[in-house]
């Protein structure tokens, strides 16, 4: 498996300094997640060659070295496709002109123009000018244009920042499909953990110019020792396979480890793998399986870790086979139930959102 090796030291002259030293997988979608000002976009710019870090670094994608020490390839020789959050489409060219601009300068032809246009649902827009497009259409054109340059790596800098919820869904779905159907690695910058959960396979947590931690998304989301767990929207992500469709009630049953979880019906084949995002605040704990509860998903778990301190709230890490759920409780409840590590309890899951299914929806 090829990798993206990054050793970057970049100090633009103000107080900020970006220092990154890590090796990331160069397949699937890697999300760079962090607050604004943490250096996410700066990192992308350094990788693309739009900013020049100090002469002691390394940027290597698989066998290709883009930058080593003082030898730094200019942006136009790197083959990194870049989708900017403002699109930056050429206003003097039509949509087709924008795509051709990239195609003409591409050293290989990885994608067919018509196929890309069909994929990103912009075939009807080819004659239009960028300024007549909606924000969502513009971003789809920007993605298509980046693809037409046959990149080795696709960089996306908050590509949905200017889109409404509907357009964001649409674009997310298209990118998921792109990631499934091509072997183009993507590096995706976002400050929205829900977007990240939808799209990413691998996660880099960036904090004040430093890599806090990095690892597979599912693993990082189920741990308490990084700052994801401290966020209000903290949520675990579990993976399961579709076991059964319950047509009568409009539900689908998912096998997660040895347990069945019930979610609103989805039109996917039995046996296919799905991800569920389970917010920590929507999980509560019972010592016994409740006999009559309206909550459908009540799963036996084992308390793996308790992160309490003296706050009003505590966070529990719950083992479900080899996967983990998170639960956020008040400290008062945790004390009342005398919860401790190793206890076998029942997790009541109020909501579980399915991820990665919109790609084939409308």
């Amino acid at each position, binding site marked *: 498996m090829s990798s993206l090796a990054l050793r970057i030291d970049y100090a633009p002259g103000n107080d900020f300094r970006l220092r990154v030293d890590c090796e990331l997988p160069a397949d699937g979608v890697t999300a760079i997640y962090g607050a604004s000002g943490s250096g996410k976009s700066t990192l992308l710019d350094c990788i*693309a*060659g*739009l900013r020049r870090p100090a002469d002691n670094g390394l940027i290597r994608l698989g066998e290709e070295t883009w930058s080593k020490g003082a030898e730094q390839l*200019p*942006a*136009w*020789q*790197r*083959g*990194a*496709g*870049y989708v*900017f959050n*403002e699109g*930056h*489409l*050429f*206003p*003097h060219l039509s949509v087709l002109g924008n795509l051709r*601009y*990239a195609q003409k*300068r*591409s*050293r290989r032809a990885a994608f067919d123009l018509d196929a890309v246009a069909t994929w990103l649902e912009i075939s009807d827009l080819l004659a239009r*000018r960028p*300024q007549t497009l909606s924000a969502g259409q513009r971003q789809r054109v920007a993605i298509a*244009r*980046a693809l037409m*340059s046959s990149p080795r790596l696709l960089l996306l800098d908050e590509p949905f920042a200017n889109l409404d919820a509907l357009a964001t869904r649409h674009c997310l779905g298209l990118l998921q499909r792109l990631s499934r159907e091509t072997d183009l690695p993507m590096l995706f910058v976002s400050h929205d953990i829900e977007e990240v959960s939808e799209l990413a396979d691998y996660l880099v947590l960036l904090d004040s110019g430093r890599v806090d931690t990095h690892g597979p998304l599912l693993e990082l989301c189920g741990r308490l020792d990084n700052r994801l767990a401290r966020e209000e929207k903290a949520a675990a992500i579990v993976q399961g396979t579709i076991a059964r469709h319950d047509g009568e009630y409009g539900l689908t049953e998912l096998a997660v480890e040895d347990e069945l979880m019930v979610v609103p019906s989805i039109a996917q084949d039995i046996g296919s793998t799905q991800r569920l995002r389970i917010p920590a605040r929507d999980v509560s704990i019972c010592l016994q399986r409740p006999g009559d509860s309206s909550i459908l998903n009540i799963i036996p778990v084992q308390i793996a870790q308790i992160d309490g301190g003296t706050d009003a709230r505590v966070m529990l890490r719950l083992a479900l086979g080899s996967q983990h759920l998170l639960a956020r409780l008040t400290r008062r409840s945790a004390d009342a139930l005398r919860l401790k590590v190793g206890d076998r309890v029942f997790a009541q899951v109020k909501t579980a959102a399915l991820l990665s299914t919109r790609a084939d929806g409308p």
Partner: protein
Amino acid sequence: MSLNDAELEAIYLTIALASTTTVILLLVGTPLAWWLAHRRGSLPAVIEAVVALPLILPPTVLGFYLLLLFAPDTALGRGWEALTGTRLAFSFSALVIGSVLYSLPFVVQPLQSAFARVPAGLMQAAATLGAGPLDQFRSVVLPLCGRSFLVAASLGFAHTVGEFGVVLMIGGNIPGETQVLSIALYDYVESLQFDQAHRMAGALVLFSLLLLFFLYRSDGRHNWRIDS
């Protein structure tokens, strides 16, 4: 209304001077304007001030210094003579040099303000799509700033046609070599040939009006341009 040979020669000379000057101005002014638009600091500010000087300086001042500089006993005068075998002072080449300096701000300033408004993001996008610096300039900056180039070239041309003081100081009044329209007009008035003066002045007014009319009419037809 027919023109005599001297008048035709003056017209030809004026057009030749203005065209040569405009071409040189675009070649020199474009990189200079780009540099000024993208550098901060005191050196660019100094250069900017020097470039803008002809806007406020009486042309005779510039002409006076150039006259001294072009004299056969200066380094420039001697070097020119050694290189070309001709004298620089009172030559067509001297007029071109003077006109380039005199009209420089009229070419540099519109280009500079247009270049400064080209979004950096577009250049970055072009770079990530495989366009090198020259390619970026040709494929992004030129089309976006097309009107500013038109404005810069027209102003440079028209201003050269209209110059008088510099030409008078460094060109003398040699028919076929340095006697341009504005000087020929001056000659007519000096010698009280008002009929000829009227024709020449009227032609210059008409020319200038037409040029400006076409310039303004070209405005706003492309709303994507950053300079319309």
